């Protein structure tokens, strides 16, 4: 055997499958020693994928999956892009707010299920969401107030490093509170998938994700464009000093921005955990990074861009994951789907750093 095959074997990849791709085989056969959560995540992902590739159903199925994943990315990306638009700061702790949202919801749901066994799943979902959202909002507010505000006039690198530190801090705190284990998230949705088109499946969780994301995004766009608060946010984003000289309490607006973004992240966290059935202390990292990519792809600082970027990234990733095996002649399988996000990030940063819709690369001091 070639030495590199040993390396693959050590990573848990069936080396033979790399040499002799079995056409039309289902992907799970090649997944071995992955972390339980990853296996679960992938299992969930893959069970939503019809086993035969290269058919119309497969493509449609991947589009559905892509839209679902993409709308979650979009929700999280909105938080990145709003904060960037107003402060010029990449809030790397944003992904971890999502994680806290999922774990708080999990905690509350578990408590409710133990205390009132008769309580319906919808009620449990709404109550745990109702707990997770305010907790995350408070956390977003606190993060800005405690860590970023005093660095408002510091060189740009200082808040950026602080944001990364804040991300580690939140993960560590979550690890202390909830441990390193992967918690299984209670199934709060009916599990039987719907079949809108023959051979294309969509679960009730996924339907909820699509609808809820769409509603939240529309609401946010209306808030920013049609309300007094939204005008103050846009004014602050354009120029803090002038906004405050025109009577806008910019600190309050910045706090509100963090509060709104964190609320959206909490919803996204609960959605992700409901969809994949797990929650753990580092679950925010990858969605956070993907959502950041989505925000950059769409044009960071631009709300529409975050939505478009999220959806496009979700689609590319999902469709890519479905066909990566053929594309790479069997060398890579769908566990490499993260490649797409970061290849896209690289390409965007090289060729169109302002993103798809972005015209404004902030040059504020």
């Amino acid at each position, binding site marked *: 055997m070639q030495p590199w095959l040993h390396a693959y074997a050590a990573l848990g990849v069936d080396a033979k499958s790399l040499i002799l791709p079995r056409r039309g085989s289902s992907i799970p056969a090649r997944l071995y020693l992955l972390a339980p959560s990853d296996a679960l995540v992938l299992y969930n992902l893959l069970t939503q994928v019809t086993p035969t590739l290269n058919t119309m159903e497969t493509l449609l199925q991947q589009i559905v999956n892509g839209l679902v994943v993409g709308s979650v990315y979009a929700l999280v990306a909105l938080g990145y892009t709003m904060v960037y638009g107003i402060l010029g700061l990449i809030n790397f702790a944003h992904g971890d707010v999502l994680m806290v949202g999922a774990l708080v919801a999990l905690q509350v749901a578990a408590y409710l299920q133990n205390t009132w066994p008769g309580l319906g799943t919808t009620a449990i979902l709404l109550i745990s969401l109702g707990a997770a959202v305010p907790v995350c909002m408070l956390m977003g507010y606190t993060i800005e107030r405690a860590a970023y505000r005093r660095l408002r006039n510091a060189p740009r690198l200082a808040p950026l490093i602080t944001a990364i530190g804040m991300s580690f801090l939140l993960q560590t705190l979550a690890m202390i509170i909830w441990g390193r284990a992967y918690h299984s998230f209670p199934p709060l949705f009916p599990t039987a998938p719907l079949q809108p088109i023959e051979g294309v499946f969509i679960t009730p969780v996924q339907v909820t994700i699509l609808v809820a994301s769409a509603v939240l995004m529309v609401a946010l766009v209306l808030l920013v464009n*049609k309300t*007094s*608060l939204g005008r103050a946010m846009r*004014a602050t984003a*354009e120029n803090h000093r002038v906004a405050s000289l025109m*009577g806008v309490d910019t600190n309050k607006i910045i706090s509100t921005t963090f509060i709104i973004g964190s609320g959206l992240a909490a919803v996204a966290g609960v959605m992700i955990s409901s969809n994949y059935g797990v929650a753990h202390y580092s679950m925010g990292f990858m969605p956070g990074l993907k959502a950041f990519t989505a925000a950059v792809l769409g044009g960071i600082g631009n709300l529409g861009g975050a939505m478009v970027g999220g959806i496009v990234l979700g689609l590319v990733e999902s469709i890519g994951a479905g066909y990566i095996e053929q594309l790479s002649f069997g060398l890579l399988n769908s566990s490499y789907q993260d490649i797409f996000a970061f290849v896209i990030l690289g390409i965007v940063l090289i060729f169109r750093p302002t993103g798809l819709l972005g015209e404004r690369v902030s040059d504020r001091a």
Partner: protein
Amino acid sequence: MSIVLLEAKNISKRFGGIQALSDVSLTIRKGEVYGLIGPNGAGKTTFFNVLTGAYTPDQGEFVFAGTELPTGKPHLVVERGIARTFQNIRLFREMTALENVMAGHHIRTDSSLFGILLQNRHTREEERLITERAYELLRYVGIERFADTLSRNLSYGDQRRLEIARALATEPQLLALDEPAAGMNATETAQLRDLIETIRHDGVTVLLIEHDVKLVMGLCDRVAVLDFGKKIAEDVPAVVQKNQAVIEAYLGGGHHAH
């Protein structure tokens, strides 16, 4: 007519080695148009910035309508009733003319995030009133037809008018105009003059920084002259015009070490 609206008491502000304002005191009465003039670099805009809370003075205080003004918190100054325009136009460029004026009204709204999310009657009613009021103000300054134009696409003169409308939207008692006629042609300046007269007539006190001596002398009830951060004169225009120190400051008296 002689109720004091704003009293500046011994205001000083230093930037590094430059004493931008030194011990400036002045009194603005309710209902007047008060001019602040002086050569370039005399400290006029610094005075504005200190007054509106953009800078904190090193020394001195402002008493406005009987109570001391907060420093370093511009939005609280606006709330108290002082609004300003900028020497270099500073509109919200990505917003329409109407939205700019509505943004100016933000301080007079109490729309909380909660109210907005609920879209309760109070919030909706408030939004309707703000919109109405904004149209009114655009009409007042004469640019209503550009309500839906992005402010960056307005002509220079209209941008200046929009800044005034935005400042008026904060419902000020004192309107501080920083060189509003800068870059305007004769017709535009004449229209501006009419507008300022109207504003004063409608009960808003005006503080005017201006280079256009003719405009200042024709419009202002009283004028203060700053030179090198010091107030060198304060009186009615006719008297100030004849003041020897003022003439020297403008023409270069030779006794300043440049």
